[in-house]
């Protein structure tokens, strides 16, 4: 069932960018500075653009007559395959930027490997997305350093955010049968192989930010497998999907 595996893996990619894109779009109009507001909105738009490509290809691979929009707006919580970390509420600007950094460092490494995929469409999408992710990472890393190595208050907020988010980072590097099958075909990297690069980047940046890496290896999981989402995703979807739920097939 190679196509079913590819469909699952594409949902994981597209749901990550969709859910994080929606989360950071929630800052639009109320970020702490005008410049940050525009920058976060740009990042959200990049991620939603990537979602269109991943879910568009997923719909094509599935071959069930669904579109990218159907996948985004008409699935419920249990069908989403995003990482749990990305559905967490924004909480505050520091938590948002810490999550962004932890994800960007993984995302850039993943897209870099995906750009060499044996599947030409996957390689094409990743090659376009990796340029955006490279910029996202530069920006979020710099912000994490500035706030971590900033005032005592901003340092404490960033350390709290890191401690809260750390147990959610392990899920990025989980592998299952879908990952093994796709890695064997050279279509997608085994997530476990991305961990060393990610950790190196994270240690460098968080070191410069004077923050302490938690050493608890516990990792939440269940998002990318779909087994168990947090209670936050359902609330997010009721907002994100409200229009299609209230007015199915509405056009504008």
């Amino acid at each position: 069932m190679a196509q079913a595996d590819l469909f699952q893996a594409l949902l994981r990619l597209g749901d990550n960018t969709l859910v994080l894109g929606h989360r950071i779009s929630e800052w639009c109009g109320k970020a702490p500075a005008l410049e940050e507001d525009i920058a976060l909105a740009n990042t959200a738009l990049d991620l939603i653009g990537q979602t269109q490509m991943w879910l568009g290809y997923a719909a094509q691979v599935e071959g069930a007559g669904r579109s990218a929009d159907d996948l985004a707006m008409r699935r419920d919580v249990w069908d989403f395959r995003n990482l749990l970390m990305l559905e967490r509420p924004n909480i505050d600007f520091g938590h948002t930027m810490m999550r962004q950094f932890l994800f960007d460092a993984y995302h850039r490494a993943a897209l870099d490997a995906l750009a060499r995929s044996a599947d030409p469409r996957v390689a094409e999408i990743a090659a376009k997305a990796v340029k955006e992710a490279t910029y996202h990472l530069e920006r979020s890393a710099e912000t994490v350093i500035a706030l971590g190595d900033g005032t005592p208050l901003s340092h404490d907020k960033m350390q709290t955010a890191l401690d809260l988010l750390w147990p959610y980072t392990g899920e990025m590097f989980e592998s299952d049968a879908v990952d093994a099958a796709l890695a064997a075909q050279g279509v997608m990297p085994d997530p476990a192989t991305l961990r060393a690069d990610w950790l190196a980047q994270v240690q460098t940046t968080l070191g410069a930010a004077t923050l302490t890496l938690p050493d608890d290896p516990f990792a939440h999981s269940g998002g990318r497998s779909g087994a168990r989402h947090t209670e936050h995703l359902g609330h997010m979807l009721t907002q994100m999907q409200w229009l299609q739920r209230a007015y199915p097939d509405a056009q504008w």
Partner: protein
Amino acid sequence: MSGPDATAPARTGEWPLFEVFIRGQHGLSHRHVGSLHAPDAEMAVKNARDVYTRRNEGVSIWVVEAEAIHASAPGDKEALYDPANDKVYRHPTFFKMPDEVDNM
């Protein structure tokens, strides 16, 4: 971080203001496009990228702290600019070209 400067005006909590210059394409000069706030020059370049190049406007960005710019005073405009008005010979169009010269 440097210590507080007794002569500096009280900080408002705002990031410093930067003026932004963007080169639209290779071969053109940088043009002033606007200003923004940023904690430092590196972040100002990134903010400029996000605020002023969203529609493919540029290939190069300069930022400079607004307080580093020295400007002429509007009140000096008569002394500075009016004297040029009656010196038409400073324009190339003032001079007649000899007929033998086709192009210059």
